[in-house]
């Protein structure tokens, strides 16, 4: 039995449309949460402000996407109920987003891979038959262009910097590459949304992402790792061990004081 077929989805039955929004929203949320861990601890003041900016944008995207997902679900759950009161198996973020920050280089590698993915996804959503989603994507893509400039700029500096920085980011790339397969592994949700003209087909996005990443890696003098066959299934609710810890911390107050208003 594959990991994906064992996935459980507790709570209400969600439409493919709703699940698609959760995938995007949860990816932004978890990545934003991870980036916020850097605030006050970055290599320099400018990077502290930059990473905080990225985090803030991503959490803003998550709020729009989760609010919309909650409305589609129709169970009365708002952005906070979805963010703070779901357990890990109900989170549908890409597995890459939940991976630990590691050093600054590893954070940059994770960011660059996901920024390039979001760039393609949001660009594809500009023509979505879902006008609300299209308008969220139109706002998000402007932010994501800046995010990609930040992360790819740093990846080039670190890759083509010192011997040590080159070694560190190459190792991070080798380590995180296995999670990129999931970004383009279409399942019934992706297929249904593509067929309905809501979302772009992932198969179309993959070559553009790949070309964009290759361009950065070349400038950064980094070697693209070999494809890794194993697929991760965060977007189906099957996560790495890390997500549970991210959520335990993030959800602490809402879980400790049920029903309180903040």
């Amino acid at each position: 039995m594959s990991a994906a077929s064992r996935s459980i989805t507790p709570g209400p039955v969600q439409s493919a449309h709703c699940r698609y929004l959760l995938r995007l929203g949860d990816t932004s949320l978890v990545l934003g949460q991870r980036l916020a861990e850097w605030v006050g601890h970055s290599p320099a003041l400018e990077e502290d402000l930059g990473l905080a900016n990225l985090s803030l944008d991503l959490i803003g995207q998550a709020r729009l996407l989760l609010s919309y997902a909650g409305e589609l679900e129709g169970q009365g759950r708002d952005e906070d109920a979805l963010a703070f009161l779901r357990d890990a198996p109900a989170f549908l973020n890409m597995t890459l987003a939940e991976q630990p920050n590691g050093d600054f280089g590893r954070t940059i590698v994770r960011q660059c891979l996901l920024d390039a993915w979001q760039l393609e996804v949001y660009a594809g959503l500009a023509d979505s038959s879902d006008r609300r989603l299209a308008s969220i994507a139109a706002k998000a893509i402007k932010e994501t262009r800046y995010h990609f400039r930040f992360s790819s700029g740093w990846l080039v500096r670190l890759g083509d910097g010192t011997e040590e920085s080159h070694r560190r980011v190459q190792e991070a790339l080798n380590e995180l590459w296995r999670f990129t397969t999931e970004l383009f592994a279409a399942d019934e949700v992706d297929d249904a949304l593509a067929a309905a003209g809501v979302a772009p087909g992932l198969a179309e996005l993959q070559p553009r992402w790949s070309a964009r990443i290759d361009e950065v890696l070349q400038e950064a003098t980094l070697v693209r790792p070999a494809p890794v066959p194993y697929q991760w299934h965060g977007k189906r609710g099957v996560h790495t061990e890390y997500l549970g810890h991210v959520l335990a911390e993030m959800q602490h107050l809402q879980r400790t004081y049920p029903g309180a208003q903040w």
Partner: protein
Amino acid sequence: MYTQGLDSLGKECVHTAAGDTAALEARFQGKVDADEKIEPKDWMPDAYRQTLIRQISQHAHSEIVGMLPEGNWISRAPTLRRKAVLIAKVQDEGGHGMYLYSAAETLGIEREQMLEQLLAGTAKYSSIFNYPTLTWADIGAIGWLVDGAAIMNQIPICRCSYGPYARAMVRICKEESFHQRQGFEIMLALARGTPEQQAMAQDALNRWWWPSIMMFGPSDTESRHTAQSMRWKIKRFTNDELRQKFIDITAPQAQFLGLQIPDPDLAWDESTQHFKFGQIDWSEFQAVLKGHGPCNRERLEARRSAHENGRWVREAAAAHAEKQRARAQRAA
């Protein structure tokens, strides 16, 4: 945020007036008295320069260290809106640090030098940030009280005689007033919340009240350099004047929140039209200033480890920039 002890002059800042210097000083003081701004290229007494470097860099360090206690709650903020607002606020503080380091650089010191002084433990930062943030209510209390005290201190600095500092402060004050409001709003939500939330708010007020009113620095009778700083128009009000103003404004706010300020002597005095308040425990203030506060070690350690862990990144950026320059030269 804010730094206390803004009027502290170092031992090296000895006022020397002789010969030509006397004429220059007279002209300088004339400009100050006429409320003209002193700009980076203008002549200024060395003691004035050193006082400003010390004050502005302490202020900048306070912004940077101040990111830590609040940053401690970003990952646990109770709603997405609160999380976003808190990230934005902590980010603003980093931005304030940046303007202030730039303002200090106009006086002839490099940011790198100031940073070294901070990491070596020789530069001060506001001792308020050596207190821990133990619950979410502390984030509200910091915004309400600490930023409230900061605004009280900083608004007069917008009229400081040194141009770059005054201008940096105008922008900072606008953002601080937003910070103060968000803090009060957090407290209000807690005060109107469950009994547990109310207790959390009261506990935070209990812990932050006295450190907040110590932020105005030693009392006027103990503050040695107030007179000189006021003559130079670096400082416009005394520590005690500002402290009184803060208490007069904050006491009714606490009442509105239904919270009890932890001072049994706090009472409205009809004759002075001010609140009377109890004795401040200056031994605590001195102890924290000397490094014995609850979090002095942790705060400096966090700054040092960020700096150390980031060294390879800064080296890589420099190496890459050098390679780029070399390539551009070869291409030319």
